[in-house]
């Protein structure tokens, strides 16, 4: 501990570096609003009809989309560029300006929508960059929704056509009544008095009325802050733990270890003492990380103290034992450096320290459960995001403590090579 206090480089690596990494991730991912990323969408309206314009307006009103109908001006005083064409839109997608481009063909307004395939509706073209698998899906989903809600008069018109067809034809009086209603609807639509295209945030926007109610995180602004505090924290804890445990190798090399073992201190006591110290060090690192999150990124830390304490101590214990095992397996500091870098980076990427596990394929999510990172992150998520009681942490606590005990026992067994000749 004294050596660590005096080694400024080690102190920086142990505390400042994790905070810096956490801050970078928090700034990138810790938004105040929702977690759905916005998608840039280029729209080319070749039809320029009332229907196509209504569709474009509906898309522009969606908060998840950033709709671009023309390229950005090159400078403030430069004249506004011309609207995108199909060709320039395709070029823009290839150049990475936007991941998706929507081409509304000429004639769309005459047959904008149809119920069922082969019913004669227009086909819109979606140009996309395959490296972004999510953007086209978001656009298609929102497009369906906007198409149904931004053109109520067109919807009604098509609906009446189907009704006319399947009831065996309206009477002239019925047709006149339908036409009158459609005229009023079109007028209201033109005057902006309908709910068309009111954006994905409003309740009731769509055919089926939906009332959204957040049951998790309803009062939280930055869901990813606590995630990354835990995720980055665990990864750096592992690096620090293995580095700190490497002091054992220095002692073995210098002969100090043998001298210590000639005193009243047995190998078990020595390793246990180092485990306690490294657990404490790891816990202090976590506290620093979360306090930084509270101070800079408004993480709600103090109302989750009991859960944090439980998860923090269990995580610290598990990573300390992990570091001890790595050190015991190696013969030199250089070996430890190489092995720990390899193992920790693999565990961190699979376990969700770099990338949330819920975005991974299911097989990778299951593989992540073999890592300390996954269990630690899940536990902190339960505390800080789901506001679950401490008693609900029992699976994470059981696994982390159990893993810590097993890893320590294995380290103790491996360390026998230093015990006696």
């Amino acid at each position, binding site marked *: 501990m004294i*050596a660590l206090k005096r080694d400024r480089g080690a102190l920086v690596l142990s505390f400042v570096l994790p905070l810096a990494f956490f801050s970078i991730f928090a700034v990138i991912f810790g938004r105040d609003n929702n977690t759905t990323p916005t998608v840039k969408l280029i729209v080319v309206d070749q039809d320029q009809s009332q229907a196509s314009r209504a569709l474009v307006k509906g898309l522009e009103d969606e908060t998840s989309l950033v709709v671009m109908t023309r390229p950005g001006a090159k400078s403030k005083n430069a004249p506004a560029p011309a609207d995108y064409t199909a060709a320039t839109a395709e070029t823009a997608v290839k150049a990475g300006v936007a991941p998706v481009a929507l081409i509304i063909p000429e004639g769309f307004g005459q047959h904008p929508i149809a119920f069922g395939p082969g019913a004669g509706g227009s086909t819109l073209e979606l140009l996309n960059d395959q490296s972004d698998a999510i953007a086209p899906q978001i656009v298609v989903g929102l497009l369906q929704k906007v198409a149904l809600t931004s053109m109520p008069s067109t919807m009604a018109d098509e609906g009446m056509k189907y009704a006319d067809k399947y009831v065996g034809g309206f009477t002239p009086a019925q047709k006149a009544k339908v036409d009158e209603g459609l005229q009023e609807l079109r007028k209201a639509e033109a005057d902006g008095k309908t709910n068309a295209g009111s954006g994905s945030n409003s309740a009731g926007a769509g055919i089926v009325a939906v009332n959204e109610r957040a049951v998790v995180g309803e009062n939280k602004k930055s869901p990813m802050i606590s995630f990354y505090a835990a995720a980055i924290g665990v990864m750096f804890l592992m690096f620090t733990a293995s580095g700190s445990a490497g002091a054992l190798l220095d002692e073995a090399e210098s002969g*100090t270890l043998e001298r210590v*073992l000639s005193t009243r201190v047995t190998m078990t006591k020595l390793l246990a003492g180092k485990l306690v110290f490294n657990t404490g060090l790891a816990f202090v690192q976590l506290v620093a990380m979360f306090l930084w999150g509270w101070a800079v990124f408004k993480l709600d830390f103090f109302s989750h103290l009991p859960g944090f304490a439980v998860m923090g101590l269990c995580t610290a214990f598990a990573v300390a034992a992990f570091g001890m095992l790595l050190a015991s397996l190696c013969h030199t500091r250089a070996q430890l450096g190489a092995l720990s870098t390899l193992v920790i980076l693999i565990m961190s990427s699979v376990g969700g320290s770099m990338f949330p596990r819920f975005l991974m394929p299911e097989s990778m999510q299951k593989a992540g459960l073999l890592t300390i990172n996954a269990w630690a992150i899940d536990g902190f998520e339960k505390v800080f995001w789901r506001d679950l009681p401490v008693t609900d942490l029992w699976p994470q606590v059981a696994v982390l403590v159990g893993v810590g005990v097993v890893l320590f026992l294995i380290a103790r067994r491996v360390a026998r090579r230093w015990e006696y000749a």
Partner: protein
Amino acid sequence: MTASVQKAGTETALEVGRLVKRFGDLTAVDGVSLQVRAGECLGLLGPNGAGKSTLIRSMVGRVIQDSGRVTVMGHEAGSTEARLALGWIPQELSIYPRISCRENLGSFGRYYGLKGHALKEAIAWCLHWAALEEKQDDVAKTLSGGMKRRLNMAAGMMHRPKVVLFDEPTVGVDPQSRNRIFEMIEALRDAGTAIVYTTHYMEEAERLCDRIAIIDHGRIIAEGTKEELVEKTFGRCSQVLARFAGETEAIEAWAKRHDGRVTHETAEFTIEQAGEIAPLLDDATKAGLELVDVTLRRPNLESVFLHLTGRELRD
């Protein structure tokens, strides 16, 4: 803590009984038996690979013997009582380089179970004994080689052991610091501490050790005071050392004729009477060798060692 004067005398502080230790096919220690009394310094001399380190580590309890017994103050080596009675100053500088002298001593004191006032007293005593009081807050790696050696010794003395094992404590140390170390060891011996001292330097063994055991190939091949060893090995013989100017082959041939040997350009002979010198020198003159220097002396420890092992101590 006041410096307590322990009784020197007949109490057996350390006993090794027919110790055997093998590493695979190699027998590192082969039936070694020895005793060290309180207030006595036993020198352990032997060439590299003789088994000294294995023997020392068996006394410390770091090596589990295949057979035989080691006891420290009557307790089995490696037991808690034995560890508390034994201090070990290893050949390597086994201290923490990045903390101060005081902090080093504090760490090792805690390893021996010292705490509170007892720990503070022990630190103060060790700093005084090692003459490191002015350097107590200096980080260990900034100390000179001699000071590091003294700190290394002090770290093994925190618990005021009754038996201390010194494994070549003056390696790489300047003469002034070495002298200081000798004074420290003599003070311990005079206070009644039993000491086992291994060294490659004959003059150290002659100055510090009451008795000397010579070990080679895992066995004690001779044991006794310096005078006893010389007497047993050479009887009343003396040594003649002669330096000649001339061809090396001629000098070696002449020395061989008279059962002598040439070392470092000096021919050595063992004679029983002074009258044997003249015929030696006459034959050298006839062989065309020009005498430069001649000395007559009683054999020393180095002579004993060389005679018994066939090797120089520093080989």
